[in-house]
């Protein structure tokens, strides 16, 4: 299975994985030939390493795609296997951080994303890689809100009489406050906030909400929402009608392809590196 994480791409080989997995992974890569060019990757063997020369062939295609496979995680005896393939042996596989949801696990907790959504995941791996690399260089993935410009617009707007509403509505930086906005957010408007955002009203397609904390929409979220924009994977997005054009939490991206016309409020959060959507009432996430 191919997975994109904060530290880059990861090829995960389950214990019982046979050679078929290799050809599947090669096919996945060739589908988007140069999308992952220049990204770093590691291989994780949950079981015994694949001794066959098919693995060597796999390594060649990985390098052909310009992916720098620099290390292998796995059980102890992986050392010689790693040297044979000129890879660094990195020891035990990293334990995925799973925040426990408590006993009352809701039965149909996760509206599982469809196959098409999962393929989107792979599609966005390159994008995630790029964001991760830029964060490593200290840049935020989202352009820092330009407070000076917003203030100027607001100042300018005040003096020039009936003029156009400022496209960017922002709040003074510093205290991670919550930006409260009443009224429908129209296409093309963007709310950026260090902290949380609460919107009472709809967020129409084409509008964007970007917050470093949580996002709550007391209405229909049809536009794009990006919570935990500075890497906070605990951030959540909730709405009475969650039908976003696109949903991002920290570095995870998902498009709501599931045709679930839920009649109830829902919340989206991160569970093992992926965005999960659950009915708000049952999610037990208070």
């Amino acid at each position, binding site marked *: 299975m191919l997975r994109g994480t904060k530290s880059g791409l990861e090829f995960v080989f389950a214990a019982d994985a046979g050679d078929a997995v290799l050809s599947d992974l090669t096919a996945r890569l060739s589908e988007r030939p140069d999308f992952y060019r220049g990204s770093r990757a590691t291989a994780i063997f949950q079981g015994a390493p694949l001794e066959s020369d098919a693995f060597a062939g796999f390594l060649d295609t990985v390098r052909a795609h310009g992916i720098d496979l620099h290390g292998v995680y796995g059980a102890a005896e992986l050392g010689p296997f790693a040297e044979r393939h000129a890879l660094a042996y990195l020891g035990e596989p990293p334990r995925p951080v799973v925040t426990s949801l408590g006993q009352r696990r809701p039965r149909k907790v996760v509206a599982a994303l469809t196959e098409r959504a999962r393929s989107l995941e792979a599609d966005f791996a390159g994008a995630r890689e790029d964001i991760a690399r830029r964060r490593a260089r200290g840049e935020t993935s989202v352009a820092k809100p330009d407070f000076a410009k917003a203030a100027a617009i607001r100042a300018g707007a005040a003096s020039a009489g*009936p*003029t156009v509403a400022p496209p960017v509505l922002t709040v003074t930086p510093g205290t991670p406050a919550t930006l409260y906005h009443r009224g429908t957010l129209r*296409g093309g408007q963007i709310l950026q906030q260090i902290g949380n955002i609460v919107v009472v009203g709809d967020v129409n397609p084409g509008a964007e909400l970007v917050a470093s904390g949580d996002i709550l929409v007391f209405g229909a979220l049809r536009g794009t929402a990006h919570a935990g924009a500075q890497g906070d994977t605990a951030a959540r997005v909730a709405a009475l009608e969650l039908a976003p054009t696109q949903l991002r939490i920290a570095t995870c991206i998902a498009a709501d392809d599931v045709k679930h016309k839920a009649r109830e409020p829902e919340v989206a959060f991160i569970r093992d590196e992926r965005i999960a959507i659950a009915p708000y009432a049952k999610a037990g996430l208070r």
Partner: protein
Amino acid sequence: MEAIETEITAPVPEAPVGDQPVAPLGRAIVITSGKGGVGKTTTTANVGAALAALGKRVVLVDADVGLRNLDIVLGLEARVKYHVLDVIENKAELDDALVRDKNVDSLYLLAAAQTREKEDVSTEAMIGLIEQLRARFEFVLIDCPAGIETGFRNAIAGAGHAIVVCTPEVSAVRDADRVVGLLPHDWKPELVVNRLRPALVRKGKMLSVEDVDAILRLPLLGVIPDEPGIIIATNKGRPIALDEHSPVGAAYRQIASRLAGNDVPPPTVKVAEPGFFSKFGSLFGGR
């Protein structure tokens, strides 16, 4: 030279002289939409003609510099001598640039410049011009250009109220929504749904008025059915609002009387069946 016809007609109205009680300032309304080709110019011409037919003194301002069309829809293209920029650049008096409609007496047109750029008009000049017109007319309807660039900003700068024209079609609704987001917050824009085809709505092939309202959430001013008669009227250069037995004309007259303040029952929508909305789930939520 062609023989000069002799014909006695009433001259152009004069600005009210100082001592007359200064009439209350007219209402400046901008007709906008974001997306082009949804019927802004046709709506401006027909609502203007209908208001004038009710005896109101109306001026139509074509703010679409470089893409002048209001004159052709009204059939006055031959009578335009001076345009907005001439007045703003003091090359002509406002009186000379005002062209009177050939069908309705109290309807006047101030045409756009055809060979100039939108950036040639400054926002302050536009506001000044609209103020001048509000002093002399009860209604100043401004035909706004498509898009959200300089032309759009100048068109809405002088106005105090907006009518958003939208066709029941996905990208038109989205662009209208974008424009409403750019209008000053204290305005209460009203919606006109244009070119509705009830048969298509029943077949679920076209958005219903409810679907459009679900996104835009604006008070509904009028619904205009899609009739070939409109193309014929534009070809002839005669507003269809003056045609008694045309359903489209009636719709425009209804909008005009609603603007003139007589309380007219809200627009009834013939389509009762479930809209396109329910069949395809949330409108933009995907298939």
